[in-house]
């Protein structure tokens, strides 16, 4: 591969942002043009990533499209590449971003240009996270994303936006600085930060536990896992709709991806050692946040808590360290990316019209917004994990992996599925069914064309992958099995060496 396709994928949105920086947004036509430029750039990126998926060879477990350039001399190389796991996240990122940009019409009322610049830069950084094959490069992209997200929450957010933005930023930064220490220590002990080389060399088992914890502190905050999940509901509630969508659909996945790529890949010993801890925290997240979600009065908060529960499933699946568990986690992440994005957009639709996110404001929407009700039904069912939606495949595989590992853990996790169904269906009942009490709702309009377009775009893959998950499973199968092979191999080799 001569053409640096991954680097152009990373750079393209930033170049678009640079163009927008000098644009003038004084008139409505200008604002439209700016939006179209951003849309063009992101769609172009989407098509490049689809083409990349097409070029991608499923049968090779090595990283593909690898680019390596000298960066920090003799120390860190700029190295990007993708395998079966990261390609899906790259496509998810490039797929969600244009949809977010279409949705700005309704939710972003001022400073459109700045918003689009922030979103585009964020896209660059997010793609970078999923492509980077060097710890330092990864950290750069991972942390860099804080700046645009901080601004998105802080400038375009709701009433408590300042508090939420600060909480988001400081929580994540605090988690990440420990990871930075761990990265430097890895460099000092192993002599490289190149992931591929580190996979081969392995990391001294005596250090692994501490290093694992340092990485965990960063990923746990970002996932978010109980008990460091408290920033998420705040951030979600205050962020503007496109911000919430990006946060839920992509930013949270960076941590799940980090667990897969780094925690398991680099620290097999520690992962084995800490599996009970992850199980414990994941189960608490699944049960406790589901219960909390039941009691929420704010729709966005409810979905935010449901995100925590879903990510609990993801971490559970990853640390079963079984083929099914890992595959399930990845599909669950992709599916959650689509479904939570859609749910936040659906809440955004109501908020744009009535300016309230409280559940009690609504009721009986089915008679005034039929299209809306159908789509909400679809995504509610997908969130529950009904067979025929992508959510089902993910949860099913995760539970299958978990049952192989521990019957008790799997049973408790299954309870979470029931709780999930109860809070989502109850939400649906209260919002859509019942009597139309609020007179304001009589004047409400159904989905307009752009909203319908965005939601259909999200609905299609949700249903398609629900019935036919083969494309996803084929893409990840080889990478996942080689990851697990490597994990088991390292475990035995190092175990024998250290006695």
């Amino acid at each position: 591969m001569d053409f640096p396709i991954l680097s152009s994928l990373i750079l393209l949105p930033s170049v678009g942002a640079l163009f927008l920086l000098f644009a003038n947004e004084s008139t409505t036509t200008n604002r439209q043009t700016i939006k179209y430029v951003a849309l063009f750039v992101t769609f172009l990126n989407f098509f490049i990533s689809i083409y990349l998926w097409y070029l991608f060879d499923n049968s090779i477990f090595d990283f593909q499209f690898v680019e390596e350039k000298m960066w920090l001399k003799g120390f860190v190389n700029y190295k990007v590449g993708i395998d079966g796991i990261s390609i899906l996240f790259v496509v998810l990122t490039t797929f969600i971003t244009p949809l977010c940009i279409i949705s700005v019409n309704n939710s972003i009322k001022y400073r459109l240009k700045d918003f689009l610049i922030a979103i585009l830069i964020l896209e660059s950084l997010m793609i970078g996270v999923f492509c980077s094959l060097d710890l330092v490069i990864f950290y750069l992209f991972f942390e860099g994303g804080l700046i645009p997200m901080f601004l998105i929450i802080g400038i375009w957010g709701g009433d408590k936006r300042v508090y939420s933005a600060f909480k988001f930023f400081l929580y994540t930064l605090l988690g990440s600085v420990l990871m930075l220490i761990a990265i430097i220590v890895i460099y000092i002990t192993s002599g490289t930060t190149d992931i591929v080389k580190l996979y081969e060399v392995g990391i001294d088992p005596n250090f692994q536990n501490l290093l694992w914890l340092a990485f965990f502190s960063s990923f746990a905050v970002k996932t978010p896992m109980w008990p460091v999940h408290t920033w998420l509901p705040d951030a979600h509630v205050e962020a503007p709709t496109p911000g919430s969508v990006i946060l839920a659909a992509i930013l949270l996945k960076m941590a799940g991806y980090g667990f897969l790529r780094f925690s398991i890949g680099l620290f097999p010993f520690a992962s084995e050692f800490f599996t009970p801890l992850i199980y414990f925290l994941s189960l608490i997240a699944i049960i406790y946040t589901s219960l909390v979600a039941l009691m929420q009065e704010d729709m966005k908060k409810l979905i935010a808590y449901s995100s925590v529960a879903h990510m609990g499933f993801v971490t559970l699946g990853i640390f079963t360290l079984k083929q099914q568990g890992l595959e399930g986690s990845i599909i669950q992440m992709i599916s959650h990316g689509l479904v939570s994005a859609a749910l936040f957009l659906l809440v955004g639709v109501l908020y744009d019209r009535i300016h309230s996110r409280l559940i009690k404001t609504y009721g009986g929407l089915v008679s005034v917004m039929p299209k809306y009700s159908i789509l909400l039904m679809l995504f509610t069912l997908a969130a529950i994990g009904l067979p025929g939606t992508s959510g089902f495949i993910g949860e099913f595989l995760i539970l299958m992996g978990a049952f192989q590992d521990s019957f008790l853990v799997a049973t408790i996790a299954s309870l979470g599925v029931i709780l999930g169904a109860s809070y989502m269906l109850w939400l649906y009942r209260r919002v859509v069914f019942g009597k139309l009490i609020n007179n304001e709702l009589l004047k409400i309009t159904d989905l307009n064309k752009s909203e319908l377009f965005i939601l259909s775009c999200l609905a299609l893959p949700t249903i398609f992958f629900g019935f036919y998950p083969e494309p996803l499973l084929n893409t990840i199968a080889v990478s996942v099995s080689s990851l697990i092979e490597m994990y088991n191999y390292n475990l035995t080799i190092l175990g024998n060496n250290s006695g």
Partner: protein
Amino acid sequence: MDKLNFIYPEIFISLSIMFLLILGVFKKNSSNLINNLSILTLIGTLVLIFNHPFNTNLNIFNGSYKIDFISSYMKILTILSGIFVLITSSKFLKIFKIFQIEYSILILCSILGMFVMISSNDLIVFYIGLELQSLSLYVLASFNRDNIKSSEAGLKYFVLSALSSGLLLYGCSLIYGFTGTTNFNEISNIINNNQYGLTFGIVFILAGLAFKISAVPFHMWAPDVYEGSPTSVTLFFAVAPKIAALTVFIRFLYVPFINVIEQWQLIIVFLSIASMVFGAIAAIGQKNLKRLIAYSSIGHMGYALAGLCTGTIEGVQSSILYISIYLVMNFGFFSCLFMLKRNNKYHEDIDDLSGLSKNHPLIALSLLIILFSLAGIPPLAGFFAKFYIFKAVLEQSMYYLAIIGLLSTVIAAFYYLRVVKIMYFDSEKEKFDTDYTLGLKFTLSLSTILILFYFIYPSKLVEIVSKINII
């Protein structure tokens, strides 16, 4: 006489100072001219430094004066900050009606003092340089003499600085008493571990030097002096003396006393931790931007010292890299400060920045980038500065220092974020004047671009710095 050619830069500055002084006295209303000529002088000095090879390692004047890579590099940094101060400050001084010939001449004097400090390889030479730069700085701090705060700043700086110079001199005499020499190289040949008097000497000198770079617990003067001095002088305070003092720190610790590292390492570690933590916490409550940057600079000096306490050449290099990047960030920050002018009045409170992003989007964006860089958020230049420091620290297995340092960056991030919040999230106020001078625009855009795009090609600066070899 053949060795004189190595100190042409110093000689050139001294001659220019005398010439400009005479010119200023005889020619009326010549402050503008003197200012421009001073800039030219600095550029000329820069050329003279570039004129002789960088890789020399020379001890001249009986080994009391050293010309090597680190001295050339640090002198260049000093000159750049001098040039920057002079091109940005003329308008500021005119508005305050303190645009007098002495201003640029004093800055030149102080830079000459710093040159001597940077090159000194001898306690006495070092002290002479230190006093020359300090005396100029006393006057500069109180340059706006009709303003009570400025006079207070000058007086405060003078009293405390004189005290610290006293301590320093006492330390020098102790060291001389126990070794019988003031030359750094000779001291290193003589010392051994058992001389407690020597340890006292080191402690006194370190206290004096810590005062000059405003490390905790010798930082008390910094916020008041920063706030009281005219902003252009504050900028000079924030960068130039720190470059010089850091060089002396490096030379003093790494040439004569590297073999007794266990005697001073803990002191530096303490200074470093205390500065990082205190700088981060104390800045949170500040309302004045200049006070804020004073506390921020205390914190940043903590990081620079963290690199120093490792006792390795990588540590020294990381400190120098840090101070170089810190310099650029300060240029940017103060350029923004110079732009906050409304009806010929400068605004220094954080609240004055309110809604800056709506009225002046480009300034706000630059300040945003600079602040995130000061906070050390990747991928901006400030991150790399910290990254190298912590790499050097962790290579010596000083985990606690790295962890405390990085946690204090999280605390520090809070107050930088607060400024960003006021700029971006709050509602706008009246617009500021937009009659910026060309120099100001140039420095702001240059420093912002350097900070923002440093990550594209970070190797060059590292490569230059890694040529530094002190031992």
